[in-house]
């Protein structure tokens, strides 16, 4: 998908702004990394048991994806093909480590509850996948759009899943220490099933079906 042409499949000219917007919105629904591409599901299962963790992880992935896409896209013409995967991984790992160091110093609570999943962002298929498939072959501008779209799509998925899991599994919603609400009967007898991994699988599976259905209706 080289950016030179600026001609869409019908041969009409599209300006950079339109292409940017397209790349961005693609990551939100049509190519949602969790529900459509089914990438990086392991951390999704782990961090969606509470909305705080989901938001924290989402922000972290957006940061790493953005930074790594920008750097890899900027130096894409100089990367030797032989070592391109190790180079991508070193770059991604550097940004994840920066994220981890900063969280540890300035947001220790989040750093603690994300635990090992913060470090595991390095091997999140989404980030390595976008580097290989998109950033290494496209301009910095479009790589930014791709990173933001996929990153926000990932965060959107995390938030939706954690809303279901936290509300059904604990009977209420607590964001950064603020108790938003508590459902009367449900909070005394919450459906703990949804906090556990099998519950996560169920929620993700049903939402995947929903997203596929939306895609079918839109006639993609």
């Amino acid at each position, binding site marked *: 998908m080289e950016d030179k042409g600026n001609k869409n499949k019908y041969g009409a000219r599209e300006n950079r702004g339109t292409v940017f917007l397209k790349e961005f919105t693609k990551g939100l629904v049509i190519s949602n990394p969790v529900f459509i591409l089914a990438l990086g599901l392991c951390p999704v299962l782990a961090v969606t*048991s*509470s909305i705080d*963790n989901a938001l924290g992880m989402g922000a972290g992935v957006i940061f790493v994806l953005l930074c790594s896409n920008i750097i890899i896209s900027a130096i894409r*013409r*100089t*990367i*030797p*093909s*032989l*070592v391109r995967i*190790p*180079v991508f991984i*070193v*770059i991604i*790992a*550097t940004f994840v*480590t*920066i994220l981890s*160091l*900063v969280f*540890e*110093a*300035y947001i*220790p609570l989040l750093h*603690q*509850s994300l*635990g*090992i999943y913060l470090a595991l962002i390095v091997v999140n298929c989404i980030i390595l996948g976008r580097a290989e498939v998109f950033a290494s072959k496209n301009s910095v501008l479009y790589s930014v759009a791709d990173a933001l779209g996929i990153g926000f799509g990932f965060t959107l998925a995390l938030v939706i899943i954690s809303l279901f899991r936290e509300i059904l*599994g*604990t009977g209420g919603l607590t964001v950064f220490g603020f108790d938003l609400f508590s459902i009367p009967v449900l909070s005394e007898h*919450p459906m*703990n099933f949804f*906090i*556990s991994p099998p519950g996560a699988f169920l929620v993700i599976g049903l939402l995947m079906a929903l997203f596929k259905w939306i895609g079918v209706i839109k006639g993609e």
Partner: protein
Amino acid sequence: MLERLKSKRLYSMVFLTLVVLISASLLLWINSFTSVVVEANREAKIKSILESIFPDLTGYEESRDIIIVYEDDNIIGYTFIATGNGYSGKVSIFVGINPDYSIKDMEVLSHTETPGLGSKITEDAFTGQFEGLLIDDIALLRDGGKIDAITGATISSRAVTSAIQERMIEVIEILSNEG
């Protein structure tokens, strides 16, 4: 020409080495100022926990991972950190004991237990049970002790009691040997 250069092994080695060097330098630089903040956070946290467990303290000193707490010239207690394996990761607990080795209070420093279940080990309903207990009582009711486990989080609860009991045995031995 760039294509030919890029396919050479030497170029690949140099390139990767350069990337790693730049990455390591960047991380060293960032770490130099975040580690200061992390250490300061840790000191402040220990100080505030000490003060909440022993409100009358005037000073403390640390020796061999045990903190001795003073009020003027009297020893009013000791504190130590107990660690153990919970349901999903390490659990770290700050324990304060009286001079007679009964528990004064305790606080969970860090854990990665399941939110809504094992995470309840930080709640007063669970931690409050430890007050006044002697070493033999620090176990779950079903294990012969006096602690009521959290419903649905037996493993997390047991991790806390065994971590405290094990470390406390060591601490008491060290303290009795020092006279």
